[in-house]
């Protein structure tokens, strides 16, 4: 059973919920940037939350199914159609052999997820089917999809009925102001108090340098505390003796960069805080030139937000079973 790519879209990759246990050799987790949309799509088609699907950026695929399948499109709305007829998003849809799925540019949000009953059955590498493009590992030939690619599909354990959907309040639309919750800290002693306050008070604009490795933001200048640089740190005031970078951490050189699923795992720029895990999904839906604000939270508030996200997914799974 295969899915044939007719139009690959702007940047489409096979992603599951990530590759773990290798960060200490410099290997980021990869995996879906918006793990919430990815998980909901899988639940709608009867897969495990972490099954491999397609992550499509700004503009998705046109693709032909060579057998009957159940699909769901979640995340950014790319106005999907089946043989030219509009189909709903955040809902399971039956596809018949030979039918063609097509998508357009997203109006809100940056990434759309295509889940298919049975998942995409590419060969796992180092415990994951996720694509890590920088070194060409995993996914389909380690790269984003191209016209003519044929993706193997897994056997679905059962056929989820058509029209399975989730409550409206669990459907995300990515409209309005985006606030990313962060726990400040790490090496934020490198910033002046004024600069730290300004970081949290300002609007930050997503620059065109925003991809699966990280999102670079434009805003006020970062001010560092003057010091004689410690041994081994390097000459620039933004430099520290090289540290590991958490996923979601904000590193500052001239501009802040929030590290994402394909993060560089460490380096010599000061990090000043970390976007909490549920809000990394929202980061994935931020579009170039959009503005975000960073909101400082405590570890307990971060754990509450994580629990809330977990409970939502548990509730959806139970209601769909």
């Amino acid at each position, binding site marked *: 059973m295969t899915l044939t790519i007719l139009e690959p879209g702007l940047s489409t990759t096979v992603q599951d919920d990530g590759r773990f246990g290798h*960060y200490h*050799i410099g290997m980021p987790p990869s995996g879906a940037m918006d793990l919430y949309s990815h998980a909901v799509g899988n639940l709608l088609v009867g897969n495990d939350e972490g099954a491999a699907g397609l992550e499509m950026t700004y503009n998705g695929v046109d693709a032909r199914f060579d057998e009957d399948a159940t699909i769901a499109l979640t995340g950014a709305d790319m106005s999907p159609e089946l043989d030219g007829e509009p189909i709903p998003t955040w809902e399971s849809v039956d596809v018949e052999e030979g039918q063609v799925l097509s998508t357009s540019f997203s109006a809100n949000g940056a990434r759309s997820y295509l889940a298919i009953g049975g998942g995409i059955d590419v060969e796992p590498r180092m415990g994951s089917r996720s694509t890590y493009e920088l*070194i060409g590992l995993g996914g389909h030939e380690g790269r984003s999809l191209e016209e003519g690619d044929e993706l193997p599909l897994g056997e679905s354990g059962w056929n989820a009925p058509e029209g399975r959907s989730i409550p409206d309040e669990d459907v995300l639309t990515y409209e309005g102001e985006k606030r990313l919750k962060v726990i400040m800290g*790490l090496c934020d002693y490198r910033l002046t108090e004024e600069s730290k306050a300004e970081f949290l008070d300002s609007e930050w604009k997503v620059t065109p340098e925003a991809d699966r490795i990280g999102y670079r933001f434009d805003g006020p200048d970062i001010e560092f505390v003057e010091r004689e640089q410690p041994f081994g740190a390097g000459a620039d005031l933004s430099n520290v003796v090289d540290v590991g970078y958490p996923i979601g951490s904000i590193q500052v050189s001239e501009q802040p960069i929030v590290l994402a699923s394909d993060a560089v795992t460490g380096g010599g720029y000061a*990090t000043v805080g970390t976007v909490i895990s549920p809000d990394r999904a929202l980061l994935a839906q931020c579009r170039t030139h959009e503005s975000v604000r960073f909101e400082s939270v405590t570890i307990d508030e971060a754990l509450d937000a*994580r629990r809330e996200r977990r409970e939502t997914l548990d509730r959806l799974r139970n209601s769909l079973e």
Partner: protein
Amino acid sequence: METDRIERYALPSPSYEHGGDDHVFVELDQAMSFDANFKAMAITQELRGQDLDGIVEVCPANASYMVRFDPDVIAPSELIERLKTLDETIDIEEYKWEARVIDFPVLYDDPWTHETVMQFRDRHQDPESTDLEYSARINGFEDADAFIEAHAGAPHMVTMIGFVPGLAWCHQMVPRDQQIEVPKYLRPRTDTPGRAIGYGGAFTTPYPVQGAGGYQLFGRTPVEVLDIDQELPDFQDSIVFPKPGDIFDFRRIDRDEYDRIREEVEAGTFTHTYGHVEFEPEEFFDDPAGYNERLVEVIG
């Protein structure tokens, strides 16, 4: 006068920082030292050995370390308490670990990185010199040749791996007053040959693949540190060869040996030459020159 012991540094109280809801970052010191690095190495090795539920990633770094975990399985406060206990109980003078001592051939001043160095002169502190000449001068060496002899003259410890898969930070195993220190380029290069030997701050890094970069370039190695397709025998278990705690013995080679090794690599038959030691920090601290000599003797 040059010191002949590794000076010891009393570490400040570690700072325990939440990296979001699912990471803890622990800075042992703001400055690089073997004290800080060996402590990071020892704590992370012990933590790995405990095999706790909910621990996802354990990452030693130069003078810090990081743990990724599942807070639904182990609470951040509980993890931090465990890390504090480890910090208090580990005495790095008594701590020992199995280390590989690895022969690492380098063609210094090779034609490929030389071409890159010349191509990006406008981004460098000193457009009139090569990276080797500049680094030799600011570190007080007579010429590039004496500088190369010093870089290859004592082994280097892999104190951290990261940025991208297989990139190893290597810190030379000599007293601080003999450490080479160089700044990064003023503006990063858009290109660096794969397998280039770079240097930034107080660290050598072999570039695993071709790409952008800002480190001073001294040479090129014929050997691979990353093999994504796992075709070379050393890469059967992992796509990355270096491990934190490895000891690299950079060895100056000529073009003939470089070409010979490349042929073996390309034929898929090359294997790294290395031996094993039980690394003993205290012996190293007391007599680095003598201990380093004994270390490199174990290379096959």
